[in-house]
């Protein structure tokens, strides 16, 4: 009997490649004489069809790390009543001008509502300057070569906004969760002072402060995890609730990449101006599918351009049947009231029940598809 494959022709020089499993993936069987060779791998003779090594199953989402940060952001925003809106568009659609107009309008409509902005661009702090001039705090995030903001950047920037302190001051009766991840990589040795104070004067008062001195040698990666756990009773789901504060995240001008990077926002708002093509929603379907609201901006210019608003909306509804639409002009103010309504009512200006029904329908659809596919396979 052949010791390799157990067949009954031990005398023959036969090929052992007839479909049996190798006794051990590391073993190479010599076809000419039956010798077994262990320990040969990529460095030695490669055996066609047999890969070395053990399998490590990861089954991990590539964007898992970002989604984890986004999840923390989302929890934090929900716990503190922050309406976080991720504004996405091509460069030049009028996002910053719209934000300045929005800040002014919100100050009229709801003067006690704190507003903050996180500005994303490759370079310059120009946009953040304009926002501050309009009267709202802003943190500029310069991505350098990066083409989109990610959730970790948003967490870091949000922590620097006075909005953050407001949120803690205004929300009585809860404890909160807070993840501060500080990662420092230093090429040279130097010392680093880092202080962070946090106090709350309300029914569940607790104070929290850190003072750190770090001396580093080069090549040292240093990270902190500060967390304390958190219980919060959310307001009844489904009813539009007025936010305690509003965070606008003006993403880098890019209709492609931001679609994939969850920041932990309540909703993505896609801004399209009438000086762009009306078929943009078809050209950038991922972005318009990911958005909850599309703002058609610069409508004051409609008499001067060939832009068919109804056709644009029809195209957008093709890639996203439940997309909401608001038409406005940041410069004349037309439509801004509807936009404010949408912000303050949590984007449920139409019908929260209908939204719940479509979410359930989508889930039902997925389950039915799964069942059908299993049925087909059987």
């Amino acid at each position: 009997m052949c010791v390799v494959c157990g067949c009954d022709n031990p005398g023959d020089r036969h090929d052992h490649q007839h479909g049996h499993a190798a006794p051990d993936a590391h073993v190479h069987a010599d076809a000419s004489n039956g010798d077994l060779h262990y320990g040969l791998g990529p460095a030695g003779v490669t055996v066609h069809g047999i890969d070395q090594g053990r399998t490590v199953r990861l089954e991990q989402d590539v964007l898992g790390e970002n989604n984890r940060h986004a999840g923390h952001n989302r929890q934090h925003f929900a716990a503190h009543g922050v309406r976080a809106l991720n504004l996405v568009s091509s460069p030049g659609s009028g996002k910053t001008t719209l934000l300045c107009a929005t800040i002014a309008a919100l100050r009229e409509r709801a003067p006690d509502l704190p507003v903050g902005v996180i500005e994303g661009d490759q370079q310059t702090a120009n946009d953040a300057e304009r926002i501050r001039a309009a009267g709202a705090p802003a943190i500029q995030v310069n991505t350098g070569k990066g083409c989109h903001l990610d959730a970790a950047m948003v967490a870091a920037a949000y922590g620097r906004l006075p909005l953050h302190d407001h949120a803690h001051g205004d929300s009585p009766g809860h404890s909160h969760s807070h993840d501060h991840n500080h990662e420092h990589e230093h090429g040279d040795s130097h010392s680093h002072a880092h202080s962070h104070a946090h106090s709350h004067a309300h029914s569940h008062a607790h104070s929290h402060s850190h003072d750190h001195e770090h001396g580093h040698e080069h090549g040292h990666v240093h990270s902190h995890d500060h967390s304390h756990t958190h219980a919060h009773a959310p307001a009844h789901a489904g009813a539009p609730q007025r936010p305690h504060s509003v965070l606008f995240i003006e993403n880098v001008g890019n209709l492609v990449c931001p679609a994939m990077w969850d920041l932990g926002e309540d909703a993505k708002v896609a801004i399209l101006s009438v000086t762009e093509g009306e078929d943009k929603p078809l050209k950038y379907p991922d972005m318009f599918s990911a958005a909850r609201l599309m703002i058609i901006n610069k409508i004051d210019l409609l008499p001067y351009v060939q832009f068919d608003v109804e056709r644009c909306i029809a195209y957008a509804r093709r890639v996203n049947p439940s997309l909401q639409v608001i038409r406005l002009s940041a410069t004349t103010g037309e439509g801004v009231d509807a936009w404010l309504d949408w912000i303050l009512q949590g984007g449920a200006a139409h019908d929260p029940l209908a939204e719940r029904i479509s979410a359930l329908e989508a889930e039902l659809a997925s389950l039915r598809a799964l069942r059908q596919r299993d049925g087909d396979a059987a």
Partner: protein
Amino acid sequence: MHEVSLAGGVLAAVEAAAERERFARVNVLRLEVGRLAGVEVDALRFALEAMTPGTCLAGARIEIAEPPGRAWCMNCHCDVSLAARGDPCGRCGSYWLQPNGGTELRIVDMLVDDA
């Protein structure tokens, strides 16, 4: 380009696994990038190959499965294939579609060497 960010994410996940599972080298890395995931597979492969020298992924064979797009058509109540977002249902022509396949972007598993 964000495929570079994604490749960075893949490398970070593999390196974290290497530390956890204590392996030295990856021979085969298997990824799943669905056709509706919005990722350009060639660019991702290029970015990965550019980043792997000197890491535990150096020399690894990278296999990328591209599950086809599928969606549930809420108009004709069928599971249909969907080549791209924004396409109509192949059976009834409606655009009322809910993607339910081909949206994956994940690391499935790896064949590793402990030495």
